């Protein structure tokens, strides 16, 4: 099996999909000839032609709308939003249109499509290249929101997303594109070549949406995260020697409450982590549901380790990013509470 970066895995998913299914097409700003600013669609226009893989005008609303029209008319578009920070001009087409078409038409029309977008910080991108806006989208009925943590999952989940009959918003943590990142910016960058989940099959496979992965078993407390924060949690637990059970949510909505509840009922303690701002971040939803479903098992309040309620800071990126120190403290406090 080949080792791939997350970029290569995403590219490979496109390749598999474009190859197998005529209906699949892919577009976005700089996504055609150039193959995307991160290279996720590189080489695909040459291979599949200009009407399958192409550049789009810089208008995120139009990109979403074009994808909706195409999907309703039988195609399976995968559209790239260049940075998650730039998805908001398309917000109305997502809230008011994409996610309602099946419902409001009584099932007569559907818009099965994938919107992909790199998210998250850790690359000194400042407030306009670092956002993790997933929480906004989790409040929209009818939208699947997913975020892979490894190249293996990225490819398998992206294929599953494109084959799903629901619209899927697929966030890719850009800090993980070229290697896992455990939250320590002072360490030399790691590469996926040395990570077991960097092993990615060449052909078709899927990683099911809606299913979390238990990436570490433990008994002392449960840590729930997705994307970059899963790597941070793993390393924090390892270094601190805490017997944490770590859940990689993978699909944010619908989230895998079964796996979460099983774990929290077992450990009785829980911390949720995300890079996005705290207030009304997705951690709030998880906690609300956990305390509802696992109230009598909980021995301590569920803590949130998150980005701050400010724009993502440029110079103080590492004071904004919820790294190991903050997570460790929260884990210890939760254990001691």
């Amino acid at each position, binding site marked *: 099996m080949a080792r791939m970066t997350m970029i290569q895995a995403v590219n490979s998913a496109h390749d598999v999909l474009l190859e197998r299914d005529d209906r699949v097409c892919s577009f976005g700003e700089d996504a055609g000839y150039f193959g995307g600013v991160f290279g996720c669609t590189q080489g695909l226009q040459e291979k599949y032609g200009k009407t399958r893989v192409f550049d789009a005008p810089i208008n995120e609303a139009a990109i979403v709308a074009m994808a909706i029209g*195409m999907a309703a008319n039988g195609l399976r578009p995968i559209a790239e939003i260049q940075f998650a920070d730039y998805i908001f001009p398309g917000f109305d*087409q997502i809230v*008011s249109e994409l996610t309602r078409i099946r419902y409001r038409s*009584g099932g007569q029309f*559907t818009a099965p499509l994938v919107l992909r977008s790199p998210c998250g910080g850790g690359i000194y991108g400042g407030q306009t290249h670092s956002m993790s806006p997933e929480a906004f989208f989790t409040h929209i009925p009818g939208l699947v929101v997913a975020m892979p943590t490894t190249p293996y999952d990225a490819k398998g989940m992206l294929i599953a997303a494109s084959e*799903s009959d629901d619209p899927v918003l697929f966030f890719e943590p850009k800090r993980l594109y070229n290697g896992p990142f455990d939250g320590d910016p002072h360490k030399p960058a790691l590469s996926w070549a040395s990570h077991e989940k960097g092993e990615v099959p060449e052909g078709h496979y899927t990683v099911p949406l809606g299913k979390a992965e238990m990436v570490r078993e433990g008994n002392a407390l449960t840590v729930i995260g997705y994307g970059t924060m899963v790597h941070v949690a793993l390393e924090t637990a390892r270094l601190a020697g805490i017997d944490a059970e770590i859940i990689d949510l993978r699909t944010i909505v*619908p989230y895998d*409450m079964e796996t979460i509840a099983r774990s929290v009922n077992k450990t009785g303690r829980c911390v949720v982590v995300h890079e996005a701002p705290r207030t009304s971040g997705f951690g709030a939803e998880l906690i609300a549901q956990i305390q509802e479903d696992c109230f009598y098992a909980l021995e301590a309040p569920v803590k949130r380790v998150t980005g701050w309620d400010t724009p993502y800071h440029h110079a103080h990126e590492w004071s904004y990013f919820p790294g190991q120190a903050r997570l460790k403290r929260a884990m210890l406090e939760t254990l001691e509470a």
Partner: protein
Amino acid sequence: MTHVPSSNMSGFAVPEPNARPGDTPDFSHLKLDQNNLAPKPDPICEASETYGLANSLVRVLDDEGQAQGPWNPQLSPKVLREGLHLMLKTRTYDARMFKLQRQGKMSFYMKSLGEEAISVAAGMALRDEDMLFPSYRQQGLLFARGHDMVEMMNHCLSNAKDPLKGRQLPVHYTWAKGNFFSISGNLGTQFPQAVGWAMASASRAESAVTASWIGDGTTAEGDFHGACTLASVYKAPVILNVVNNQWAISSFAGIAGGNNATFAARGIGYGLATLRVDGNDFLAVYAATQWAADRGRAGHGATLIETVTYRADAHSTSDDPHRYRPKEEAAAWPLGDPIERLKAHLIALGEWDDDRHQALEEALTKEVLASYKKAESNGTLRDGPLSPIPSMFEDVFAEQPWHLRRQRQDLGV
């Protein structure tokens, strides 16, 4: 160099219509009295050959009811009578539904009074395979496509047989079998979607074109620009119609920039073919639609069509137009009434008369009443029966996820 005073601002401009309640209606700014006939270029011409038409007015029916000029689509009397029939059907349907809303039978209604030619003529000029992305004021398309009136009413009554399961406000129809997209309550969103649909058709080398409609007020939305940009860039086989009925709700077309340029002229900046059409002239709308469809089918891309018309009644059942425009304005509209004009034309041709017209009106009134009786027997919003309550939780996703199942159980259904 010109001498320019250094400060003469007394505030920015806020355009006002020529007439507000109490004033005499005045449409002089529209320059609709041009007598020279607009030329008709080949549908596969360069877009630039159409730019003159953005400031002209494509007309076929003159004020005496004669069809003339290069845009005359030369329709048979049978087709003309069909057009008259469908426009009258639309109007009769609208009138009845509006009244029924007033009687509490449904929550909301919107008429297309005075604008029937725009939807009916376009619906007839297009092929069944052509896709429609309308706004809420093109119900005539449904009649032109032969949609079942009872089903339309089932929707408006939100009853147990509403194909939309009671989920949408009345008049927000969907009819996939009729290639009629789901109408959105959010203005303008359908315009760029239509381009995407058209591109998908083109990608399969299908001959279908796609048509969409928005209002003058809605041209201000970003989605109008998105649609024009996509249509231009990808040369999509799409017809982008701006129905300029002079009013949004209480704000007139000038608040969308309509005082400073025609809406058709917007197309020039994108290199789109552009036509400005007498929207109350059945033949002109038919011809313009056919021209644009031919152009799209031939692979020459999109056309932006402005149809100039007048919203002859309220915006919807929620408003009273006499609070913001003169009562007499509709009657003063210089382009007349689309039904009266086509009727006069047919009579001038010797293909119609007042008796037949009256008989048709009566038959349509009966048809609408009979349909309504049938639809009402399927329920009304007020008295039910409605769609089954558990269906509230369906169609959000392809399959119901756990949280919606739980919520359904929470509701006890």
